[in-house]
C-alpha cells in the first residue's frame, strides 16, 4: 500500500488550525443543534477547546506529530469539559501515541491514528454506531479511509471519501433516538434532530482533508 505523500508535524498543526476555523464559523450552528437536544454549549465548547489547542501548538514547532496530537488532546481535556472534552481529548491522545516520536507518517498510519481515536471514544463513552453520537460520524470515516487506502486511492481522495462518510453518518443521526449523552434524556423527543457531536466530528474530518490537501 503506497500513499503518495508523507505527513508531518505541519500537517497536525494545520489540521488543528482548520478545525479551529471551522468550529468557530459553525459555532452558532453547533450551539443551536445542542440547544435542541442537549444544553446548548457544544459550539462554545469546541471553539474554546480548539482555540486553546492552536495556541498550545504555537510554541511547539519542533515537536514530532505524535507529540503534537498528544498535546492537543491534553489541551482539549484541560479546557473543554463537558462530554466532548474527555472524548476528543482522549481520542487525540490515543491517536498521538500511535505515532510515537517519528517525524513523519503516511496514510496507513493515519488510519491507525484515527482508529485509535475511535477506539478511545468508544471505550470511554461506550457508544456504538446508532446511538446518535460522534461515533456515528467517526466510525464510518475511519472505515472508509481504511477501505479507500487499501484500494490504493490517493490520500487526498480517500480523505474526501472519509469526510463524506462522516457527513452521511452525521445526517443519519437525524431520525435516531439518542441512547447516550444528554440527548438520551429526551427519549423520543430526540428524534428528528441532528446530533451536535456527530456534526462537529464531520467538521473535524473535513478539516483533516483540507489540511492534507493544502500541503499536498
Amino acid at each position, binding site marked *: 500500500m503506497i500513499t503518495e505523500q508523507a505527513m508531518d508535524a505541519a500537517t497536525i498543526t494545520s489540521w488543528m488550525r482548520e478545525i479551529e476555523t471551522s468550529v468557530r464559523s459553525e459555532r452558532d450552528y453547533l450551539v443551536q443543534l445542542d440547544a435542541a437536544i442537549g444544553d*446548548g454549549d457544544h459550539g462554545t465548547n469546541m471553539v474554546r477547546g480548539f482555540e486553546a489547542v492552536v495556541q498550545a501548538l504555537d510554541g511547539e514547532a519542533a515537536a514530532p506529530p505524535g507529540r503534537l496530537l498528544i498535546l492537543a488532546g491534553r489541551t482539549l481535556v484541560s479546557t473543554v469539559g463537558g462530554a466532548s472534552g474527555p472524548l476528543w481529548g482522549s481520542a487525540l491522545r490515543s491517536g498521538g501515541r500511535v505515532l510515537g516520536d517519528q517525524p513523519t507518517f503516511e496514510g496507513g498510519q493515519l488510519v491507525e491514528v484515527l482508529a485509535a481515536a475511535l477506539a478511545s471514544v468508544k471505550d470511554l463513552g461506550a457508544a456504538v454506531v446508532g446511538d446518535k453520537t460522534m461515533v456515528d460520524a467517526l466510525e464510518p470515516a475511519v472505515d472508509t479511509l481504511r477501505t479507500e487506502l487499501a484500494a490504493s486511492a490517493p490520500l487526498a481522495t480517500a480523505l474526501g471519501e472519509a469526510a463524506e462518510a462522516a457527513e452521511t453518518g452525521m445526517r443519519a443521526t437525524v431520525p435516531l433516538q439518542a441512547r447516550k449523552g444528554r440527548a438520551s*434524556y429526551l427519549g423520543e423527543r430526540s428524534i428528528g434532530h441532528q446530533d451536535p457531536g456527530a456534526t462537529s466530528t464531520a467538521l473535524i474530518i473535513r478539516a483533516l482533508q483540507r489540511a492534507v490537501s493544502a500541503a499536498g
Partner: protein
Amino acid sequence: MAVETKARKFLNNPADLVAESLAGLAAAHPDLLRYDAAAKIVVSKGAPKQGKVALISGGGSGHEPLHGGFVGIGMLDAACPGEVFTSPVPDQMLAATKAVDGGAGVVHIVKNYTGDVLNFKMAAEDAADDGIKVTSIVIDDDVAVQDSLYTAGRRGVGATVLAEKIAGAAAAGGADLATVSDTVKRVNERARSFGVALSSCIPPASGKPIFDLPEGQVELGIGIHGEPGRRRESLGSASDVVDVMVEAVLSDLKPAKGARLLAFVNGMGGTPLIELYLLYHEVDRKLRAAGLEPVRNLIGSYITSLEMAGASLTVLELDDELIRLWDAPVHTPALRWGI
C-alpha cells in the same frame, strides 16, 4: 469572544460571568472559603484538615448556589465549577483534590452526566497516580429518565444537595472514607426527584432561550441544564402539578408505609418563594395523605437552571442516622444551621 447579550441579565462579558460571580462569593464569605482563580476552584477556608475525609463536588455553573455555595463547615471542602452548563475539566478536580486532602481520602460527588462522569473519572485516575485515596459516587436520582441500556442513565439532580449536606456531616463527625462514601450512596439510593419547567432559561453565552415554552404550557421531567423535559403538557393547577411530581417520585421510591421523609421543594432560579411555599403546602398534604411523614424539609432555590421558572421535588426516605446527620451543624453561604 465578547458576545454582547442584551438578555434580562446582570452581566459584564458573558465569558467572565462564572469567575466574577465566584469572586463575589469569595468576597462575601472570606470567613468560609476562598476562590482560587488560577485553578478555578472554591476551597473551604479550613481545608485541608488532617485526618478528616474531604468532600468535593463540581459540575457546570448555572446551578447556584450548587456547588460553591455549599463549601464551608460541615458540607463540601471544595467545589469545581465549570462553564455554564459545562462540566469542569479534570485539572480542576485534581487541584481541588490535592487542596483538600487531609490524608484520610477524598470523596468525589458526581452528578450523572456523561461529561461530569468522564471528567471526574480522569481526575480520580490522576489523583490516584499521585497517591491520594479517592472514591467517586455518582448521583442519579431523577426519575424522569429511565435507567436503561438505552439512556445515559438517570440524571443527578436534587439529591446532590442532600448528599453533600449529609455526607458532609458524616465527614465532619470523623467517619472514614468508606463510611462517608457509603453515606453518599445511601442518600442517592433513598432519594428520588422530578422537575418541571414553566420557562426556558437563557444561557449567557448565546443570550437566547434554549427552548420556547408558550405561557400555559409546562415541561415535565426536566433536568437542571435548561434542556427540555420528557414531555410538554398544558399547565394545570399547582395541585395538579404536585400530583404529577409526587406520583412520579413515590411510585419509583416506594417508601415504606409511615416512612419519615425529607421533602425538598426546589426552585429552578426564576420561581419566587411564594410559589415554592404554595407547592410545599400541596406536597406536605399529599405526602401525608399517602400515609407518609415529612419530618424534615428544605424549601428554596438550591440547585437551579439559571433564571428558569420551575421547580423540582426531591423526596429522601430518612432513618435515625440520616436525620442526625441532616440536623448536624452546617455553615456555608447557602445552608446554615446550628452554628
